[in-house]
């Protein structure tokens, strides 16, 4: 059994307008997605901004109330607050936020920030608690003198590591990491990612790693789901996505990975433009007439894509 099973998750937000403030429309932030996260793996959730990644992540940690669908953990549907409470769910499932500054209360010291989940779930003695906080700071490579400082006294990378320390404080089974490095410089990104990987090795935690950039996800994830307009357009293993991408949206995301070497920059730009042109011209074959993502079709055991069956067949014939 998987650690977490997301089944046909939908999150719709009402849009109110007019004089009476009545519900006039809906934003389909998440519009029916399913995925299974295994224990100890890193699952990538990738898509451009506004595709519903954060909403999916927040539903999984229980911050957002789904309109429809189920999220199963230990056989229970944790979209129901009662089940979350019964399982002490947030002891096992935690979150790392994109904006490290706003995710740390500016009025609290690092000690109190990291100890917050411990105080609610672990009930340690004062000394044990301080010790545990020091251990956690050590794990993310911060000195003990961070203990009594305030969030604004740290750099972005350090703050994100504090967020990581808080998330692992209660030894969770799954951490939803919502674009944890998107706001950081490239060099700092690698550093934070390395701490996250180290923690995974030491604690066996699973990550749902959310990103808008397939480049960042490449070295982190075992399985990847590509999300667009609230739905999954392609889902598969790392090999499926990077080496056998089928959906035009996946190809576009792949071409958008920043090229770091100077020689290939021009080449990459031309490639990106070609893919963008193809995307604009062939969009209507990959989306239905309302612009919605098509149903997923299995290509292999692991690989599914949201395309018409005949297109899939054609692509496979080309491959052979």
């Amino acid at each position, binding site marked *: 059994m998987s650690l977490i099973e997301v089944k046909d998750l939908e999150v719709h937000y009402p849009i109110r307008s007019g004089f009476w403030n009545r519900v006039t429309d809906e934003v389909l932030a998440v519009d029916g997605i399913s995925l299974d996260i295994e224990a100890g793996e890193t699952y990538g959730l990738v898509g451009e901004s506004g595709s519903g990644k954060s909403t999916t992540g*927040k539903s999984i*940690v*229980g*911050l957002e109330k789904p309109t429809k669908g189920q999220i199963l953990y230990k056989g229970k549907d944790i979209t129901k607050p009662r089940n979350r409470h019964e399982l*002490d769910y*947030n*002891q096992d*499932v*935690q*979150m790392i*936020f*994109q*904006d490290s500054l*706003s*995710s*740390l*209360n*500016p*009025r*609290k*010291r690092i000690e109190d920030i990291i100890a*917050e*989940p411990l105080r*609610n*779930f672990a009930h340690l003695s004062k*000394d*044990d608690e*301080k*010790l545990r906080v*020091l*251990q956690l700071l*050590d794990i993310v490579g911060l*000195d*003990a*003198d961070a*203990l*009594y*400082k*305030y969030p604004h006294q740290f750099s972005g990378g350090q703050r994100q590591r504090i*967020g990581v320390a*808080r998330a692992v404080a209660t030894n969770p089974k799954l951490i939803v990491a919502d674009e944890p490095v998107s706001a950081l410089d490239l060099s700092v990104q690698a550093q934070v990612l390395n701490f996250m990987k180290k923690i995974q090795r030491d604690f066996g935690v699973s990550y749902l790693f959310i990103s808008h950039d397939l480049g960042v996800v490449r070295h982190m994830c075992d399985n990847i789901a590509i999300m667009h307009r609230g739905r999954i357009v392609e889902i598969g293993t790392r090999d499926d996505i990077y080496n056998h991408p089928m959906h035009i949206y996946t190809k576009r995301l792949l071409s958008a990975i920043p090229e770091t070497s100077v020689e290939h920059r021009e080449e990459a730009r031309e490639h990106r433009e070609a893919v963008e042109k193809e995307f604009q011209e062939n969009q209507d074959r990959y989306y239905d007439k309302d612009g919605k993502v098509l149903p997923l079709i299995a290509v292999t055991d692991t690989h599914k894509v949201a395309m018409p069956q005949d297109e899939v067949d054609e692509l496979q014939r080309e491959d052979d």
Partner: protein
Amino acid sequence: MAQNDNLEKKSSISAEDLARLSKEAEEEATPSSRKIIWNEFKADKAAMTSVIIIVAFILFVVIASFFIPAHDYKEVNIMSYFNKPFTPDFWLGADSSGRSIAKLLIVGSRNSIGIAIGLTFISGAFGIAYGLISGYFGGITDMIMSRIYDFMIMLPQLMFIIVLVTIIQNYNAVTLTLILSLFQWMGTSRLIRSRSLAESRKDYVAASKTSGTGNFRIIFREIMPNISSLIIVEMTLSFAANLGVETGLSFLGFGLPNGTPSLGTLMANATDPTNITQYWWTWIFAAIEIIVLCLAVSYVGQALRRAADSSQRLGME
């Protein structure tokens, strides 16, 4: 001790280091607010003077009123009927009952300021809690609470206060403060609600939720400290407004019961045309005091507001 050994092993810093660090941190704590406010007042002489005036005046009034026995301002003394001011016995003159205006002013100021402070705290605390809760929960809770707010705003408040004061037979300063508080919390609650709404969307609130912290703890321990500067400004400015509330009512004759001096009852002397011109000392000192106090409090409030809003600051770090 085992704890400590363990702690030493885990980190390279000793217990003394920790003690030193926490002391340093203590000094840097609330680095911003307190220091910023202090700088702001140093840069704004008017606000600084105002603080000194207000504090000194309140202290003087409270202490001095202890030495004025009740019969001094309750009993009629025909001999000193409308005694002129600036005489050895009556520094500020006497009123139609021969009571010393200076003594009435001291006791009256204590009563009026006391009511204003009580009103500010009671209605402020309620308004803050109401706004925080309404903004934090949002949705249906917010909708119901906003409808109650709308209803309270629509009520003809002055009329209600006058009716309540007339119905309740034996009311005193405390009951009057409570009655007034019923109608004074809305402004604060509106302001706090909008900030609470914005603050509740921030990720640190989400992080507290996933850390297992309860809603009311989040509201009062996580969100409230983050809007403390707004709360201080709002309380100061509403104190200035509240000074006027009781005074205005007493002026109209619906404030404190007869025989209880207040700035408003002194001001009410000005309703008699002969008092206005001939016996001007019966009301003019109270009027001057009200103007000075309200101005001083709002100077302070404005300095605090600038301190809270970084873009308007005068004081340098």
